[in-house]
């Protein structure tokens, strides 16, 4: 049974001082249900995730105690990808007809401070100052720039694009475009990445209603079909965060394996994608993910960014809503925001940021610690 997305809901990312994370999740869920023209009582199952705002299944206290199966998902930054993947399987298998996927979070300001013991590491690793995702991102793109001749200008171009796209997106957290000079001269965080090259932990909620493709038109005039939903973890040799040591040989990342599998299952290739969301927790990630997802060769990003290929007006618009850089990252919701945005583009509802190439097929890629990637291919 094919799977369709019939409801999109979001509680805008950023800061909502008067609302808990859970309430932001409930607001997103209500919006998605309304968009699908249905209600929570109709939901047969739900998958939800939140890193710092409690158990997702507590949402039933706000949405209604209807007795549905509600499973909590926890896969770091890839939580949204894993939740949608689980919902895809639930419908694909024939077990259920319709359900809800929801993610939300409300993080403190500043960088995440994970506990070593949660990641199978001893305390010394954190106490001596090695347990920071920002360091890993800096080191990964540092090596990548060395191996593939990527310049600092390309880092700046990605940040410029993100905030420009954010300025066109009413739900974005950062809606002010930044100049080249503002980005270039921002305070350094982790060489070579500065303040405007990182996304920040934020707040927000996002939800999707999914159902069997054959009943989708009863709910929405423009269902978006979820062609594939693939999640992969890291192979031995993949260069990942929170690794006290790395093997000699560098292996393909989980993004490469998830992406290749997704294209294979969908029976299409990267050249068939009209609009994409690629995980951009920092500018280096977007650059590396362009190649790891098969859209260009390693090193080719330098030219792609200079030529504007990934701009809203380009051949392959990437992160049209400003991505994580302009929206911030409420971990539980972030992967679903990507799907929300690609569905919005495929429906033609992107407003000032609507891509001009009449998109038919879209792509989302989320990546999380300690090496998980989720890829979705969507079509109208």
């Amino acid at each position: 049974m094919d799977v369709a997305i019939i409801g999109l809901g979001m509680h805008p990312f950023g800061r909502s001082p008067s609302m808990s994370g859970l309430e932001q999740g409930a607001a997103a869920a209500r919006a998605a249900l309304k968009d699908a023209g249905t209600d929570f009582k109709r939901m047969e199952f739900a998958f939800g995730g939140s890193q710092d705002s409690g158990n997702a299944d507590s949402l039933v206290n706000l949405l209604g105690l209807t007795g549905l199966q509600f499973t909590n998902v926890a896969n770091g930054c890839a939580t949204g990808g894993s939740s949608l993947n689980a919902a895809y399987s639930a419908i694909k298998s024939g077990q259920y007809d319709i359900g809800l996927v929801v993610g939300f979070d409300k993080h403190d300001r500043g960088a995440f401070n994970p506990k070593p013991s949660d990641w199978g590491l001893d305390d010394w690793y954190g106490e001596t100052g090695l347990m920071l995702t920002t360091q890993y991102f800096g080191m990964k793109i540092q090596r990548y720039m060395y191996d593939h001749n990527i310049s600092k200008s390309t880092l700046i171009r990605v940040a410029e694009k993100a905030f420009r796209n954010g300025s066109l997106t009413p739900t974005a957290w950062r809606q002010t475009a930044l100049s080249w000079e503002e980005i270039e001269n921002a305070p350094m965080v982790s060489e070579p990445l500065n303040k405007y090259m990182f996304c920040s932990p934020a707040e927000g909620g996002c939800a999707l209603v999914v159902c069997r493709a054959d009943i989708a038109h009863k709910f929405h005039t423009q269902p978006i079909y979820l062609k594939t939903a693939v999640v992969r973890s890291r192979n031995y040799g993949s260069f990942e965060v929170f690794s006290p040591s790395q093997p000699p040989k560098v292996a393909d990342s989980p993004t490469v394996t998830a992406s290749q599998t997704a294209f294979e299952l969908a029976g299409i290739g990267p050249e068939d994608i009209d609009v994409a969301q690629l995980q951009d927790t920092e500018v280096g990630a977007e650059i590396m993910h362009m190649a790891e997802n098969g859209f260009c060769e390693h090193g080719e990003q330098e030219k792609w960014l200079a030529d504007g290929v990934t701009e809203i007006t380009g051949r392959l618009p990437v992160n049209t809503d400003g991505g994580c850089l302009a929206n911030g990252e409420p971990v539980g919701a972030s992967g679903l925001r990507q799907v929300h945005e690609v569905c919005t583009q495929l429906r033609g509802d992107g407003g000032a940021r609507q891509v001009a190439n009449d998109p038919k097929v879209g792509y989302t890629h989320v990546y999380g610690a300690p090496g998980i990637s989720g890829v979705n291919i969507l079509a109208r």
Partner: protein
Amino acid sequence: MVAAKPLHEGLFSWPTEIPNLIGSQCLDCGEYAFPKQNSCRACSGQNMTSADLGNAGNLWTWTVQSFMPKTPYHTHETQETFTPYGVGYIEMACGLKVESRLRENSPELLKIGMPMKLEIITVRTDDEGSDLLTFQFCAAEEQS
């Protein structure tokens, strides 16, 4: 004065004049790991032995930690006394790349491929007055 001791046992040989990093090697597939592991990340085997990883290597990649990390970071530093530190991966003789603090903390002093050597530093002092030690790497050659 109480004797200095490692913050975490088993990461490097101690006490000794020239400490080396200690990891493990899989007797089934030959792959190395740091810190020591009881099972192999490469082949899932459990036939592991301790391995001397040496005290020198080349810088594979690097960054600089410019702000004081939140907990679990736990050193003798305060917000006022915090000194930025380098972080990098050192490619050891066996090919394993080990993540480490670096003494060098400015981009001008760090270059991919440069030779690095191990040194032992104090993280903080415990309640009994013992210095707690960890490892870091620094440039193997004096830089002009």
